[in-house]
């Protein structure tokens, strides 16, 4: 390369570098915190979405920032909020809605919904997901990576136990009966294979809410100011959980770790497990045997909580930034993108029409397990969420773990949990 060529090249490079900011002059920058809670190349997917959006909307720059787990992300977002420079939008747990409102950190979506098109968008989500996104007549979160609890079963082990491998348990009684057949013991009486596992480490309240809903209970009022932990139906649900290990001996005793439960399933140490639909892709990639996915069995009714993350818009961002963030959120939740996101991750697509897209139809055709979570949404209830959410939830978690480890009777454990929740929530009524 001679000197002139080199200079020309440098000039072109410099020109290119200069041209970019010139194009972006007056561009609105939207910083965006997101957590990762399931396996897979999530960071790449999000970056690709941001790039595609920028191509269609040259006046907006999306700056996605991976912020850790859900817990770490809210810590970072709220700390930044208190310091005065919060991310314009973030994906946080849907249950953090009351906390974010109490911290005065977010604005409702209603302020941005102006056109017919906007209104249609707001109506497009599964109603089950909106339960945790609305309060006081306003919408505070837009569903994005949402999930429910489902039952996974090992078809091979079902066959070995003389059960129909295509028929998961439909009721609580069947669940116990199947689990009894699926529990294997060695000569000395030690269990080599458990019938069922419902994880109880960390956030047992979420899986328990499935049981409680099936027993006909509601754990908290929609205003998030009152819990009903000590209602007879709740105690009945806990008794059922405790009995699985104590009375029927088909479930491991003590606390079952959430993180290792899928591994237990892969290792054939357990024949049925309850876990999130978000694990679907993980199980599909790692289970070396045919498996099924089913709705949770019914008690008095079917039921499962929803879970996962919503988009929120920061109150301290400028109106232009907020508007740009709204545009991005609307863009990323179109049927096609919701479908793709669901296929890539295992999360439930957040709107019914996503399941009518060609991509989703093809996916569900090849892998019918993917539709189970959607079908269950009909029976889904709002995830437990109150003011001072984490503290009120911890009261329930502690009570559940006390009962599961045998430290307290279910009735006593729930009475104590309720008393603690009452103490915390009193100032909010």
């Amino acid at each position, binding site marked *: 390369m001679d000197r002139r060529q080199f200079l020309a090249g440098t000039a072109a490079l410099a020109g290119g570098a200069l041209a970019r900011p010139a194009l972006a002059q007056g561009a609105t920058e939207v910083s965006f915190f997101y957590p990762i809670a399931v396996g897979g190349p999530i960071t790449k997917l999000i970056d690709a979405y941001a790039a595609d959006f920028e191509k269609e909307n040259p006046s907006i720059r999306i700056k996605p920032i991976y912020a850790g787990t859900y*817990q770490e992300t809210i*810590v970072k977002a709220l700390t930044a909020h208190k310091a005065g420079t919060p991310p314009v939008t973030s994906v946080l747990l849907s249950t953090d809605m009351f*906390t974010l409102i*109490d911290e005065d950190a977010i604005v409702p979506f209603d302020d941005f919904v102006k056109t017919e098109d906007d209104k249609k968008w707001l109506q497009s989500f599964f109603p089950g997901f909106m339960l945790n996104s609305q309060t006081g007549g306003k919408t505070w979160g837009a569903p994005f990576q949402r999930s429910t609890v489902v039952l996974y079963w090992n078809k091979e082990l079902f066959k070995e136990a003389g059960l129909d491998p295509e028929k998961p348990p439909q009721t609580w009684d069947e669940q116990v009966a199947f689990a009894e057949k699926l529990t294997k013991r060695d000569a000395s009486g030690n*269990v080599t294979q458990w019938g069922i596992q419902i994880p109880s*480490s960390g956030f047992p309240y979420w899986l328990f809410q499935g049981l409680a809903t099936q027993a006909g209970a509601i754990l908290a009022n929609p205003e998030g100011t009152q819990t009903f932990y000590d209602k007879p139906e709740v105690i009945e649900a806990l008794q059922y959980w405790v009995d699985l290990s104590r009375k029927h001996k088909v479930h491991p005793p003590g606390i079952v770790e959430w993180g290792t439960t899928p*591994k237990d399933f892969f290792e054939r140490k357990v024949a049925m497990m309850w876990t999130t639909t978000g694990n679907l892709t993980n199980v599909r990639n790692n289970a070396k045997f045919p498996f099924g996915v089913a709705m949770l069995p019914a008690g008095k009714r079917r039921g499962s909580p929803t879970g996962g993350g919503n988009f929120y818009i920061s109150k301290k961002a400028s109106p232009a930034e907020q508007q740009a963030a709204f545009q991005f959120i609307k863009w990323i939740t179109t049927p096609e993108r919701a479908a793709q996101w669901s296929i890539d991750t295992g999360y439930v697509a957040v709107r019914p029409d996503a399941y009518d897209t060609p991509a989703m139809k093809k996916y569900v055709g090849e892998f019918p397990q993917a539709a189970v979570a959607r079908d269950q949404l009909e029976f889904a209830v709002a995830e437990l969420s109150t003011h001072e959410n984490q503290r009120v939830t911890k009261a329930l978690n*502690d009570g559940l*773990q006390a009962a599961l*480890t045998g430290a307290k009777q279910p009735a006593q454990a729930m009475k104590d949990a309720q008393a603690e929740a009452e103490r915390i929530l009193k100032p909010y009524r």
Partner: protein
Amino acid sequence: MDARLVISPQPLLRRVMTHPRLTATIHGWLLLLPAMALLALFTHWPAVATFIDSFYSTPRPRRPSRFVGLDNYQQILADPVFWQSLWNNLLFALGTIPVSIALALLMAVWVNDRIVGRTAVRMAYFTPTVLPMIAVANIWLFFYTPQYGLLEQITALFGAEPRNWLGSKDTALFAVTLVAIWKEAGFFMIFYLAALQSISPSLAEAAALEGASRWTFFRRVQFPLLMPTTLFVLVNAVINAFRMVDHIVVMTRGGPDNATSLLLFYIYQVGFNFWDTTYAAALTTVLLVLLALVALLQYGWLERRIHYR
């Protein structure tokens, strides 16, 4: 810098620079300044601010912070999770401190001798210290896994009952204590090893001439000479017993039912999960006072019984 080498035209400056005591003082303070500034900014000021905050209520947008006096401290007295965490922390300290120090001493004496593969053994003992706690905790999580975890596979060989180490209230605290001991002992061993190597070999020769047994030599000569190291290690072990919570976050999140909740973990929970910042400040103050008392005890009482060369 040597003051005599500085040539200064100003008489005043020259007087200052040539006045040996004053120069030394100024030099001293200048050298201390960067460290002092950092310490003040990131340690002393936050500690004072925490102490002040603990007398206020947590600010909420609808209810601004106000002075509440000792309310937060009264809440601590009535908080069962605090008492449980304190009790857990005492058990954790009692479990980790003596065992890890004893183990460190034992390992140091062992690898101080001329044994085959000495370097390899030393490295093996020190490895846990190098690994990040989060990684360690994730590995141990699988050691403790029921049914197919390493520990279960070993105990099953001896026909022991299957156990759920982390999932039972009786064994969870013991299980996380063990991880801490494993992590710490190698670190303390290094200090003992350094101290052992600085003990003059003539002492060992003299003892051998006198016909002292190995045990007598250790008890009468090595151990007393190691006392300054023991104090240092002890101070560190105590601090670590109240500081190490990374593995709790990974392995149990304080569960089951607060059985493994340690003080610092509980403070984190109150501060960053519940966002009750002033209550967390009050808890932090209690922890600081507790640590200060222990440190005073150690330096005031123990140090007088230690022989420094």
